[in-house]
């Protein structure tokens, strides 16, 4: 079960912890530790956040979204459950399946494993930001054309993954697509066509061998 970092009542400041070391060390070391502790206390005072909810602003698909979140809220939870942007999915909540993939400052990340607070001040792109019905991206069109989707629950994650790959590597080899998108899981089994779609979006044609044979005409 996904465990939250619960408050168990034990609390010690970094300064006092370091100071406790200092009292049993040599004078020179004590002075050094004191200096570090003083710096940390200054840092601590400015940056202690929570545990109660705090207001944040997230830049999502080019628009600012204002939310109030506890520090332990993930970027996925914040966007998926507190905004109408439900395209990113929660499938494993522990960075093993890629269904929550988002671009943050141009880098593909698992949004289930980033805190919403840490996404502040960064440019966040979700699958909704890539295109919409009627105005889809090249990658999204390729997915439909190659039938790189079935139930569709893994699809947003894969669309993000392939998009991120092509941003970095516009003409990938098949091996590079497999490697880059290995962090996304699919249970329906759309992998072969995701591979085809990624290559198609890169302008490379690859088809699997399929054939329809009329049974009546068979010997």
């Amino acid at each position: 079960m996904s465990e939250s970092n619960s408050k168990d009542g034990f609390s010690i400041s970094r300064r006092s912890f370091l100071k406790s070391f200092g009292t049993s060390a040599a004078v020179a070391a004590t002075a050094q530790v004191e200096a570090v502790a003083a710096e940390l206390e200054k840092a601590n005072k400015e940056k202690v956040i929570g545990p109660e909810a705090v207001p944040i602003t997230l830049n999502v698909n080019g628009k600012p979204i204002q939310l109030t979140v506890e520090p332990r809220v993930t970027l996925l939870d914040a966007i998926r459950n507190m905004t109408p942007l439900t395209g990113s999915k929660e499938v494993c909540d522990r960075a093993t399946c890629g269904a929550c993939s988002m671009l943050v400052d141009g880098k593909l990340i698992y949004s289930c494993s980033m805190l919403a607070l840490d996404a502040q001040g960064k440019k966040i792109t979700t699958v909704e930001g890539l295109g919409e019905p009627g105005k889809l991206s090249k990658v999204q069109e390729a997915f439909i054309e190659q039938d790189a989707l079935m139930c569709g629950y893994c699809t947003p994650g894969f669309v993000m993954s392939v998009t991120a790959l092509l941003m970095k590597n516009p003409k990938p080899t098949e091996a590079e697509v497999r490697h880059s998108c290995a962090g996304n899981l699919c249970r329906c089994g759309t992998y072969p066509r995701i591979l085809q779609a990624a290559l198609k979006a890169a302008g490379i044609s690859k088809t699997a061998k399929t054939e329809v044979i009329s049974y009546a005409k068979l010997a």
Partner: protein
Amino acid sequence: MPSWPEKREYISSHHTRIDGPYKVSGAAKYPSDVQPEGWLYGMILRSKWAKAKITKIDLDPALKVPGIKAAVLAPAVEERQKSGADVTMRYYGEEIAGVAGTSKQACLDALKAIKVEATELPYVVREEDAKADDAPRVWDDAPNLSTPSTKETGTVDQAFGECAAVVEGFFTTPVQLHNPLETHGNTVSWKDDGVTCWASTQGITSVHDGLSKNLDVPASQVRVISEYMGGGFGAKFGPGVEGAIAAQLSKQAKAPVRVFLTRFDQNLAVGNRPSSFQKIKLGAKADGTLHAFEFDNFGTAGVGAGGATAGGGSGVALRAPYIYRVPNTRVKQATVAVDAGSARAFRAPSCPPSSFGMESIMDELAVKLGMDPIEFRIKNDTPAPDRADDPNDPANIRQKELKLGAERFGWKEKYKKPGSSPGPIKTGIGCAGSSWGGGGRGTKAEVEIHSDGSVEVRCGTQDLGTGTRTYIALIAADVFGLKPEQITVRIGDTRYPPSGGSGGSSTSPSVSPAILTTCTKALEALQTQTGVADARGSNWPDACKKLGVNPLVTQGQWEKGLSSTNTGGVQFAEVEVDTDTGFVRVKKVLVVQDGGLILNRLTCESQLNGGVIMGMGYALYEERVMDKNSGVVLNPNFETYKLTGLGEVPEIEVILFDMPERGVIGIGEPSTIPTAAAIANAVANAIGVRVSSLPITPQKVLAALGKDKLSA
């Protein structure tokens, strides 16, 4: 007698999914996405004991957590508490209670706050251990191992004496977990005027009926919606305990509540494919004709078998000798109960393990006889004498699939004696066949034609990623002479005419005939009402204009003659085995499959790919691991329950037999049946020894080669 049009422009074409744009852009709203006004997040507290008697549950601390609006007991727990019966948790992960609140964080805190006291009871979680006479009993009133059922034909003991060659083996398959990407769950809104449930389900009607009954709400006041859903594979029928909990939470909180399982819980409690432990003995005459077959199997369906359920099937019973006919047989089957989550139907229940056992022993016997495995199968995969001339008998179809497939696969060129390929990386090939029923039944549909020419087709069926929505549009388009984009398809709502659940590969043979007949009736009604002799195609707009103010609504239903049952299917696999690491790499799989009339070639091929990939997971990666000492599931997450990934997927080639005269049959399950068997046979062919236990892990390969240090 209705029939499929011979000239089909869109039916049987290669057509993209009409819901594709919504899925690729995140616009599609799944039941886990919907956010009805004021919705609350819900979570479930589950037993951390493998078996325990609950003595105290206190929900009050949960209700005090800020943000929490409701806390309820699981229905079974509440019922037992009320009646004074023991509240016994029967497996790690069984439901105890549920909470709903304004955030996931509030729910997590609330679950921690609930006080539960329990007395632990002895438990047993592995089949081998549960069989022992002194094992703790899963059910008080009966032993864990059921009385076996035995069926005999001919005179098997004598027949073995008459065989020129006999082989024996012990084959095991694991408990496999469905793991659809969208977990089980529902978003339920219980208001005074009724219950609305957005369900991730394969059967909106099953959820509807279940909720109405469980919640004691009139059926007419329950509505279930499942416009999209993220996979089921057999386990998503009925509201489930999670649906009942969500409903009760909604009632208490007076707000909609979304309860979807975590991935962890998904792997504990909502179904699995039973395991199998198959002792098989097979004998043939000198000319290769199968003559004697002895089979002794047991497996577990968790707490869903044994004792109280009278050792009921739950999919544990296998089909033996599956697709092969043997005149003298003894088939003995039993089930063993363990303290673990109950089994549920899982894509082609009983067939993948049946195929694995049977096809493995077939290859062993072929090798012993010195016969080519394909020739051996062609000799023995024959129809019953009274069906010999029936071209639609699956065995006759498989005869053609074997011959054509072997030729396309290059079987004769690629086949080498087992273990004979040079070097540390050995290649091998294998094949296996399948049989599945499919078939359709009653479904109703409705067509509404508007005077502006727009048309809606409504049916209370589901699209699990199977492409149902799309072929409905293709059929309507062909009947009306329109383009699929001009058809508005509405499915997944119990307000639409009822259809059955999407299981058993029965959706397309149930739904497509109903759509065809209803659209045909609608066209006739349009022509009659407007006096336009032929309203199709370019005549459509003018004909519709004549309808005037009121749209034309036509109802129809499934009719015989447009669908049938029983498919064959054969698969060939080529693998590479690294004999230093034990790693198996599947290079290629060839699928030769029939499915009657193919409604949409593109989505059909995707289904076949999907079945192969799932079968490959069964062959090489998937197994639920129970810890003997603590009674827990050890691998309830994706880093430890391994699914086939993009990096592993082989080249998959598909040959579809087009048999439109058979009507629509259903293709969801056949493609996953023989894959593991074909791969296992290919591995045995590559390394010259057999790994007879799934999944075929590197450790098992090395052990079979005598290289595993642990077994030394």
